[in-house]
């Protein structure tokens, strides 16, 4: 299952590129680019997963190698998640991403949802661990939002303009009549009601309800996994919807 998920993830990551046929070049800049490192780690993690899968399906009988390969696979997965989170956490221009909670969050949401998936494929014997992970994910998500909400307004338009000693600045004539790339890409305005609804969906379906259903021993584990998936999709949607970019200070925002 993890093999399929990683493959689908990697392939779909090329779909949003302007020039997908050149995607292979993205493996070259591991010295500075977290995006490049992510691609490399994701592909490297394939190795141990393929070994375990191949060993099981083709009945190779290499049982002594399974445990070390599993450890490698886990280390690879954790490293891949770390590189993914650093793509976002390294971007100073987006305060909602540029913090340690994003890095912690990636690991704990992955562990919690992975735990739910594990229960789904028959791992009921350790379901308590999954419940603890879901609770941890809940706490981290709330802490992340507290951090984001408390740190709004640190950057001002005046600072963006380098003119902090001339009073308050507001836009006068717009630089262009129609929206440009920057406003289309980074100008999403999240309305507060929608934010609240999506936050409750993320917490409720992503963590609270799955934890409760596992606690009461709800028999249909795939349903629990599906609920968790919907919640996490809301969480992912918010992650991008709340990623306010400081370039908006040159346009419609006084502070971010």
């Amino acid at each position: 299952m993890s093999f399929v998920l990683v493959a689908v993830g990697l392939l779909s990551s090329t779909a949003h590129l302007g020039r997908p046929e050149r995607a292979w070049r993205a493996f070259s800049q591991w010295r500075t680019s977290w995006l490049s490192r992510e691609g490399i780690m994701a592909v490297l993690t394939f190795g141990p997963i393929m070994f375990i899968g191949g060993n099981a399906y083709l009945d190779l009988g290499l049982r002594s190698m399974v445990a070390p390969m599993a450890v490698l696979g886990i280390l690879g997965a954790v490293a891949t998640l770390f590189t993914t989170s650093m793509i976002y956490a390294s971007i100073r221009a987006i305060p909602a991403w540029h913090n340690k909670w994003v890095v912690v969050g990636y690991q704990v949401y992955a562990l919690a949802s992975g735990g739910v998936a594990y229960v789904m494929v028959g791992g009921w014997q350790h379901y308590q661990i999954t419940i603890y992970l879901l609770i941890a994910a809940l706490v981290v998500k709330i802490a992340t939002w507290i951090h984001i909400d408390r740190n709004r307004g640190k950057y001002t338009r005046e600072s963006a303009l380098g003119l902090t000693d001339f009073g308050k600045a507001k836009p006068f004539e717009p630089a262009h009549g129609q929206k440009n790339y920057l406003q289309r890409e980074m100008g999403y305005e999240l309305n507060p009601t929608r934010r609240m609804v999506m936050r409750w969906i993320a917490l409720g379906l992503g963590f609270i309800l799955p934890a409760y259903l596992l606690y009461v021993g709800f028999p249909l584990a795939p349903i629990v996994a599906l609920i968790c998936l919907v919640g996490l999709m809301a969480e992912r949607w918010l992650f991008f919807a709340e990623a306010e970019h400081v370039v908006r200070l040159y346009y419609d925002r006084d502070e971010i």
Partner: protein
Amino acid sequence: MTCLPEKTDKKLGLLIDLNVCVGCHACAVNCKEWNTSGITGPMEDLKPYGDDPSGVWYNRIHSYEFKKEGEADRTVYFPKSCLHCEDAPCVTVCPTGASLKRSEDGIVLVNPDVCIGCKLCSWACPYGAREYDTTGGVMQKCTLCVDKIYDASIPEERRVPSCVSTCPAGARHFGDFADPESNVSKLAAENDARDLFPEMETKPVNQYLPPRKREKHVERALVHKVNNAKDALIKWAKLDFTG
């Protein structure tokens, strides 16, 4: 290569004088004129005469109104293009090496033959200096007219970026910030030059000169004039023509 150079031999960049800029957009227009047939062109221009035109510009002219207690309001025209930062975050995030900073002169460029159009660089830039070419599927940005400033076939005095050569007000200056004796370094030192968004820790090469502070008596006279004009307008609106 997306490693930033330890040190660049030159730091070529622009010094933009906000006290002089009149907001005519000539620099943006001439930029597009030159660069659309330049090394990173063409610059996308979709539905230019339609009701929803869009496209790529390397330079855009914003304007702001500044209000401060006890001072007359100011209008500031604010041209914004790539600042060719020393610590350019757009370069280091690039997964392919398409985004680069040249070690010889510090110019930040995108190699359109290697760019995969992932757009991460445009997210990493705090200034909005990069715009995406939807037709070519690659990122585009100011080249500091690298194909003009080194062109030996044109007279030496014309080897400056298009935005600089076209500015009718003389608000834009081009030079080497690494040389303390250059025109831009001297102007910057004499006139309280500013970095845009210093908190972003990008060390921009381009500098901006702020609007000059007004003399006390000029400020007072200006506030007085504005207030008088306001009072006169209100009286006229009331059709009150007394004294």
